[in-house]
């Protein structure tokens, strides 16, 4: 969190997207995170994704909980309304916000402390409700703001900076999201922008609950030998299921991937997720396969990344509740209040 605004200087030749914005228009305040923090790379990926998708910044509502990751919405999309809620309880606030105004895009940013410990329940229920949002966990396996305690995603046997060995089993948020019914589930690495940007784009355009777990090493407290969430460890153990391109419906192009299996997944808004499978036979629309495949790799100490599962025709909580197409916050007296005559009838029925 910072009060230092970026200088408003703009290079006059900066490229503009279809809605007339430059990348700078998607930035926020100057980050106060540690130099080299993976979270800043994720912010950069969000900026890139929104710019490329031609999203008007003010049409995004960005919500977070508490923690290093939850500070980051201040550092991107400065023209969007942001909400830094309470520790671990961002999902419920986002759910309410989404119910109030279904036409905005909802971006939930959380951390491993925020979502896997205090907020595990809210994370789980947001996934099972199918709240339409992109829910990004910036996962570093450690509590940075309180200086280095293990979080619930820290791997069993990994070491803290002070040399303490973690004896608890980790919470795997991807596994939970798959099990709980999330309809877009991915894992990525903050050091792999080429993979992360299309994943964020896909999540933002997805029709239901989209979840991305991003391993994001903490340079201050969890980037040392013995950590399984360090840059070196993740780079060495990364196993990607696919390479992904995100193609909006209106500008579909054919990309020659060369040899290798290509899977096109068209979402109901017309966008296309083009996946080049790096593992022959991996079907990103098979939830059971995703679960099994992820667990096999986890057992081998590998971090499986990429788009693990997608239900391209997913619907959301509004569909389930049969909510009005007009946002609820735009309805007025005539839509909502039954009026005096109806009340008189009701009075008569209560005698």
């Amino acid at each position: 969190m910072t009060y230092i605004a970026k200088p408003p200087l703009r290079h006059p030749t900066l490229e503009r997207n279809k809605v007339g914005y430059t990348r700078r228009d998607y930035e926020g305040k100057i980050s106060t995170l540690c130099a080299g923090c993976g979270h800043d790379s994720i912010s950069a990926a969000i900026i890139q994704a929104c710019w490329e998708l031609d999203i008007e910044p003010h049409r995004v509502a960005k919500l977070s909980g508490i923690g290093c990751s939850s500070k980051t919405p201040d550092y991107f999309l400065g023209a969007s309304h942001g909400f830094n809620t309470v520790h671990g309880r961002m999902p419920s606030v986002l759910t309410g916000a989404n119910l109030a105004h279904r036409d905005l895009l909802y971006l939930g940013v959380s951390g491993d402390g925020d979502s896997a410990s205090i907020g595990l329940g809210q994370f789980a229920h947001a996934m099972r409700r199918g709240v339409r949002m992109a829910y990004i966990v910036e996962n570093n396996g450690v509590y940075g703001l309180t200086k280095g305690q293990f979080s619930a995603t820290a791997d069993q046997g990994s070491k803290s900076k002070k040399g303490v060995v973690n004896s608890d089993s980790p919470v795997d948020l991807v596994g939970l999201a798959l099990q709980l019914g999330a309809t877009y589930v991915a894992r990525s690495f903050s050091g792999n922008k080429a993979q992360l940007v299309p994943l964020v784009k896909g999540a933002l355009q997805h029709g239901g609950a989209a979840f991305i777990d991003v391993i994001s090493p903490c340079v201050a407290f969890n980037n040392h030998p013995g950590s399984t969430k360090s840059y070196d460890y993740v780079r060495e153990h990364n196993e990607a299921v696919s390479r992904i391109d995100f193609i909006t419906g209106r500008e579909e192009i054919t990309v020659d991937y060369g040899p290798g299996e290509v899977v096109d997944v068209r979402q109901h808004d017309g966008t296309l997720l083009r996946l080049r499978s790096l593992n022959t036979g991996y079907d990103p629309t098979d939830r059971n396969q995703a679960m099994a495949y992820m667990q096999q790799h986890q057992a081998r100490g590998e971090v499986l990344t990429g788009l693990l599962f997608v239900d391209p025709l997913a619907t959301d909580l509004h569909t389930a509740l049969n909510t009005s197409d007009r946002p609820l916050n735009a309805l007025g007296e005539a839509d909502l209040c039954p009026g005096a005559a109806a009340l008189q009838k009701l009075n008569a029925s209560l005698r």
Partner: protein
Amino acid sequence: MKPIESINDFVVKFSNVNGSGSASANELFAKAILRMGVPVSPRNIFPSNIQGLPTWYEVRVSEAGWLGRRGGIDMMVAMNPQTWDADVAELEPGGYLFYDSTRPLPPSKFRSDVHVIGMPLTEICNAVYSDPRQRQLFKNIVYVGALSVLLEIEPEVIEKLFSEQYRGKEKLLASNVQALHLGRDFAREHLKAPIGIRVRRADKVGDGIFVDGNSAAALGCVYGGATVAAWYPITPSSSVAEAFQKYCGKFRVDPATGQNRYAIVQAEDEIASIGMVVGAGWNGARAFTATSGPGVSLMTEFIGLAYFAEIPVTIINVQRGGPSTGMPTRTQQADVLACAYASHGDTKHVLLFPEDPHECFEHAAAALDLADRLQTPVFVMTDLDIGMNQRLCRPFVWEEGRRFDRGKVMTAEELEAGKDFGRYKDVDGDGIPWRTLPGTHPTRGSYFTRGTTRDPYARYSERGPDYIYNVERLLCKFRTAADLVPQPVLRLATEPTRLGVLYFGSTSPAMDEALEVLTDEGVHVDAMRLRAFPFPDSVAQFIAAHDRVFVVEQNRDAQMRSLLVNELEIDPARLVKVLHFDGTPITARFITTAILKHVQAPALAAPRRDPELQP
């Protein structure tokens, strides 16, 4: 002992076993009397249990229109052997004991000063019905039939109620009518009827409606424009959300598209419920949750966030006995302080205190307006007594063309016109800043909402002066609220007096009666019914105008009195506690006795100095 004799003024209590199907029969009894034009006020006194434990239904019949509990029982319909002794002991001398005489009881089980009416209910039902469930269920209707003869309740009225209840279910209608007449026939042939307490058709109900407070509060939320409800089941508030669902289904489905103009989520817990309400309020929808004390405890962190981040939130707190799980199915007014100062740090919240279902409706709708106007949490402090009991009250009223007060929401046009927007800036001097909703304008008016402090332009700041500006402005806003909330209701005694009484919420009907009884006793008391916190100036003026002010409330620790002392800096000695907190609704008799005791004890009022303390 001379039997009690009274027409249209008595109390009947039904003692039953939870789960035996007595509730609808007992309600039928109450409603039949109401349909004869005689005011009734029934109260469920029930256990935190689905089946097996004792449950009671107390019906006060009062042609004079007293709707509070009176105290004392004139007739006991004793259907629960487990509670026999206590039930019999509760009867007023000269009262009536109606019981199932199928199995004989020893004389020691009866009182000589009550009039005993035995009827072999089990035997009758066993003879007529073979199905065990029918035997049990129709036993209740059979005793209602017998009571209709004993108390002269018109059977046609009961039959009409049956026909309304079982419209389209002819078989059920016929079997209930049959059971009713089974009871009536036996009573006519074998019992001495009528007895001393009786019902006589009157015209004292007028246009009053008979409804429970939870349904009324839900309807208030519909009329007040709530579109998002998030809740978690908890007694005694669950029926608020369930009634909201029912009314929305009736009134809020778009006839053209079949789509719902509302969203209701049964959340995973109270924390998520309030979180959703906070999110919806932040995004410009009118949103509410309904809960009880334990739920409020879980919600307090979010309540603090909503207070500090200035987000409209409406919370309907149907209070019950606490703390902790306390008495989940018993009534109290024991969350006053917990809600007034909910959360940590310096917080103060707006509380509304409805007296009956009519005001539950009014206050729920008003709360949604106030929350938007003040951009803050607003509590509607009902309780189990109003919430879960049907009460005769004034009909609901809605002024045609009434507009929702959406508060200070800056539009895209205003931003475009260059209006200065500082989210936490007090531009109008009332402590209430302007807000914008997400998505309003491409380049202007966005801001970051957070629980950490900030400057008037919503920029993160840890500067002391910025923090002080924030919290003092919040206090200013709270003072503004005092003029916006429902104002107290003053009721002056017929003669000048130095005694005053303050009361609030569900105490109201018992207090109305107590004041009249006190007047008859020659004790004149000015009364003020508090309807909201913060307290308007008139409350301090009322206290200043009297030497002694009784504060009547239904909790152990005199929470309202503490709030008055704390907020108005009143000398505590001037505020006399009158406290009722056994979980049952307060009675007129309790209030009258407590005030008379104080008034008639001159030693308490006389100045006294302990000689031991002389210098």
